[in-house]
């Protein structure tokens, strides 16, 4: 089963959830997952846009009480 690490980027503006994901994905193994917690609704669109462009895999994106939980799997 894939290992999953969490980046809690709620309430942070700089560098922000997507930049944290880009930094964090370099630190996990291929096949493992990162879950980004974001209070910025823009993350729900800009994270999948980058993930798809680079070729990683979107696992899920859900919103709970104003917090987006976005799970990405490293593929390369």
């Amino acid at each position, binding site marked *: 089963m894939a290992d999953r690490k969490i980046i809690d980027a709620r309430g*942070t503006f*700089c560098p922000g*959830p997507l*930049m944290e994901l*880009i930094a964090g994905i370099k630190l996990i193994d291929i096949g493992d997952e990162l879950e980004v917690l974001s209070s910025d609704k823009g993350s729900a669109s*800009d994270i999948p846009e*980058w993930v798809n462009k680079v070729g990683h895999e979107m696992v899920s994106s859900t919103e709970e009480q104003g917090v987006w939980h976005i799970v990405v799997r490293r593929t390369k």
Partner: protein
Amino acid sequence: MKILIVGGGMGGTILANNLSRRLKRELKSGKAKITMLSASDQHMYQPGLLYVALGRMAVDELYRDQASLLEPEVEFHVDPVEEFNLDGNQVKAKSGKTYDYDLIVIATGSRAVPETIPGLAENSINVYTEQAALEFYKTISEFNGGRIVIAVGVPHKCPMIPPELTFTLYDYFRDRGMLDKVSFHYTYPIGRLHSLEPVSDWMQGEFAQRGVTSETLFNMKEVDGANKVVYSEEESEAKYDLLVAVPAHKGMEVLETNKLGAGGWIPVDRNRLNIEGHDNAFAIGDTTNIPISKAGSTAHYEAEALAENIASMVKIGAPVRDYDGKVFCFIEAGKDRATYAMFNYNKPPDPKPPTKSVHWFKMAYNQLYWATARGLL
């Protein structure tokens, strides 16, 4: 209480001095002791490297003797730590000496790692070390014209460096009468020009005025120095004549080898700054994995909050406040105008249009910094 501070950069130094003042009585009576271990007897004002790179500050202006910055009660050793034993409250340093503690703060900073992108280190310039800044100035002063590409790695120290490099280089070549010979192409890892949306919006207007082109969602993958092309993870490319890099950073290698955190970033509580799983071990500054700016001001405000908490732990046995995520960044908008961004975990930044007065305050702060390091400002 034996307090051990590992790292003599901005965060460690401000913490040591602030704490020393708060614990005057306890230090005098022997109830508390502060020891600092650093890798160098010199303290560098790292934000000054930008000005060295532009030929506007001499290298020796960046340095002070570390011991001269510290309160006399702080015991200072140049003896970098090689082994951390957080469960045993002990570190072992390069000298072979073991240091015991009751409370430890790790503030060892971060380092640029251009070598992690194939071809980047040997085909680009950056401003992250003294040697790199001097090489930067030599390169731009000999540059005869062409396409300048700014490329940004993640994570990086000082989030304002990408726009600052672009704007100050533009003015540098304007002053040399070369704007008809150079063009600027700015790339950035996410889908806008800066991680802070208001800063990105402001940059768009500034870029339009200057004719700076840009490409977002551009993360460096490889540099082909022979053909002068930088390739991105997103399968695009940018041709350059001069590649100006903001390389990705890592925490210190010793933290990775001691398995304190992936990438050398130590996981800490974002408010209390204690290392996960430890009540008597803390980290501040670039060293942490907190998802906020890796910047001197972050280290500064974290150090102040932690000094207050450690002092209260000594005096009343408990911390009294949270770090609120405060960050303050100057933004040089050219050679003689600047603005700033200030924000915390709850309040987004609201940068104002650049002015000459903010630029001159930044110039003044380059000297005032030494009062900040001493814990006075």
